[in-house]
């Protein structure tokens, strides 16, 4: 079927089986590989994008469901090409990534949290960001989220 949505601000149409997960549509049909495959059962969060502003794990999300939706991926999270979002900036400032594979999903989860809660506590972060990172970047991810929250509030 033909599915249409707004992707990172651009009207996008794609031909895909209706039950194909959005993850694979993004990665294979649209060749946007920043969103990652990790587990296939929405357990790890590597495939997180924003659907109508909500952090969503896309490896089990049929593409038909997002028809008409507004989708934002890691490729579209920066305010403008060549710039970085406050979260991305904080991520670099605190040298959060290691292998980097889970970080797109981690950043998208953090962005959604801060959109909803501009000053999250540690518990808020724990509850909202449940992504798995095998490199164990958690300590710096937490620090970076707090730093990004500050930057956004003061920004």
């Amino acid at each position: 079927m033909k599915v249409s949505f707004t992707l990172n601000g651009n009207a996008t149409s794609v031909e895909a089986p209706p039950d194909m997960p959005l993850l694979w549509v993004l990665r294979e049909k649209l060749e946007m590989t920043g969103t990652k495959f990790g587990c296939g059962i929405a357990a790890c969060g590597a495939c997180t994008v924003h659907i109508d502003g909500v952090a969503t794990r896309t490896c089990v999300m049929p593409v038909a469901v997002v028809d008409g939706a507004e989708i934002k991926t890691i490729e579209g999270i920066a305010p403008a090409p060549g710039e970085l979002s406050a979260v991305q900036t904080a991520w670099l400032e605190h040298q959060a990534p290691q292998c980097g594979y889970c970080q797109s999903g981690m950043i998208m989860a953090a962005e959604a949290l801060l959109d909803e809660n501009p000053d999250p506590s540690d518990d808020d972060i724990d509850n909202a960001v449940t992504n798995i990172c095998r490199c164990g970047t958690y300590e710096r991810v937490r620090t970076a989220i707090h730093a990004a929250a500050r930057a956004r509030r003061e920004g």
Partner: protein
Amino acid sequence: MSNETKKQSSNIATIARRTFLVSAGVVGGGVALGLALSPNRLKIHRDDVASGNEVILNTWVKLTPDNKLTVIIPHSEMGQGVGTGLAQMLAEEMEADWDTVAIEQAPATDEYVNSDLGRGYIVGEGAKIPRFVYPMLDFTFLQLAKGMVGQITGGSTAIRLTGYHGMRRAGAAAREMLMHAAAKEWDVPMHSLRAEASVLHHDASGRSAPFGAFAAAAAAFTPNLKPALKTPDQYKIVGTAKPRLDLPEKVTGEAQFGMDVIVPGMKYAAIAQAPKFGARAVSVKDPDNAAVQAAVQIVNLEDAVVVVADSYWTASNALNQLDIKWEGGDETLASDTLRATHNAHLEETRHEEIMDKAGDATTLLQSADAISVEYAVPYLAHATMEPMNCTASVRNGKCDIWVGHQNPIAARDSAADVLGLKKSDVTVHNAYLGGGFGRRAKVDNVVQAARVAVAVGAPVKLIWSREQDMTNDFYRPAVVSRMRGLVEDGNISAMSHAYVYADAGMPDSERPFAFQYDVANKHIARHPYPSPIPVGSWRSVDFTQMGFFNESFVDELAHKAGADPLAFRYAHKSDPRHRAVLEQLADEASWGRPETPGAHQGIAIVDSFESIVGQVAEITIEDDKRVRIHRLTSVVDCGQVINPNAAEAQIHSSVIFALSAVFFGEITLKNGEVVQQNFPDYDMIRLHNAPKQQVRFVNSGHAPGGLGEPGTPPVAPALTNAIFAATGTRIRELPLTRAGFRSV
């Protein structure tokens, strides 16, 4: 001459002799022969690594006339920041301006092997060789003799071997070449020149010019294999927290992992490997023909069935619909029977290989006061965030492989072997690794992708599902251990250790089995028992099991002696570096004075890969035996720290990696198959249960040790020793769920 020095000299002679023998013995070994004979490693390179106006100064350094410096990195980036660290070491000796430095992945070709780096320079200089290196050199020679060369990232060797022996010299040699060129052009003595921040100065005449101005002229000089090197007090780049060069593209989604490669005309493949190890697919049926219609092709690799389609999801769905009949494999294989077999094997001394022996432990341990305990740890999966994958294209007798690999040269060779191609006809494009931890040193995925690409006549990206990844690993071996010990007058008078051993690939020279305490009578023996399922290196390899056994047992002995666990360890250590780590750890962790009221502490210290890591876990036990870690303190002596920020990250990472294993990690077997499939039944530490970490480095003044792995081994025993302190329950089996403990 001291005995130690004599011993080293004679070993150097042996190595030198063997170099000649091996070199002479390899007939038709091509480049391998050239490498072994070459007096100058730094002259070997490929012209095609230079593009545009780049000039190759030596193997690892390119420079442009407009002063841009590129360091060629013969290691894989899998999260550790290796490129940045190696570039810092090179740039330091070159006196380069860090802002001009870029890094580039070395080609996966024989010119850029890293396995000879330590050897080449050490033998060349004839200087003091660390004792641990000897057997490693032997190992390298062995590999060379077999005609094998490697570009291996593993064993925590990048900084301590490639960096310390290779990159520093490459940088200093490049600087000398530039100074030669400037001295000639300006007609001044070389010693009157000064290099600083990528500029050469002749102070007497006030002349100066950037490095780049001499790039072309410098390349004509021969790189000096024994250039003068700086002393650590002169360092400006090494020892500073330079931001990692690979991170900007890791926050924008632009970083290319093996999984992200897109090749024109590429198909996607899903795979079902034999559920029982060693089984074969004897028939593949498509019950309602739907899968065949949707799928481009079904490829039976015998030990696996692959479906190729125009998308991974289509291929995966079609694969799930297939009716595959498997034959073979051992249906009786199960964790409980394997454990019983291990236990029985451990009792039979005829199997034992003695690894370390002193005095007469066996007699002393017959004392009624001796304690005897059994430990056991399970198989573990690597579960890298990026499931295994590989993209292959085979056309016109040439093969291209895109993969994130810990040994891209082994990947190249494996593809050449299976396809019957020359190695030079296979090109491996090494991408970022979405985690390695030892798993990505294996070539199973590469061989599969190459075979499938040939079978379907098109480029293919093979993707393993998480379930395939978890059930087809090369697992950290399960080990059963028996430890005995005798405490007399507050001291360990004798100890013994017997353990079942499955070879995971670690050289004995690393001495993972060593009981790292001063004990006059000891008997350490392994009982080899090959694993019935594939095993391999898992972050810190045999140190993970041995660290748990030894550091739990020494805690038991301390308890038996009625001694403080830290003081007891200290009293049994004479190595000043170990003692210094314990002293600083006592202070940093406020040992005996927990920060959190009512908390309990546990300690462990393990020396691995030439680095010493001591850790204290501070915990409380909450309702339902839930373990809360309030603080985990690591004190690390890894010698010279190259990049404090990246170094701290490696300890953070090692701790979390180990904690996931302690709390959740267990691969079990039932009816010949791996039970665990995905993260719900092989769970991981996440933000909510990741403890606050405190990491401190000891400034010991020693040469750099490894750091990717040494933070892992002490974590489990530090935590279980804390649980003992808190509850009196001694954890002798992992994971903690065996004893009913769980994470908060």
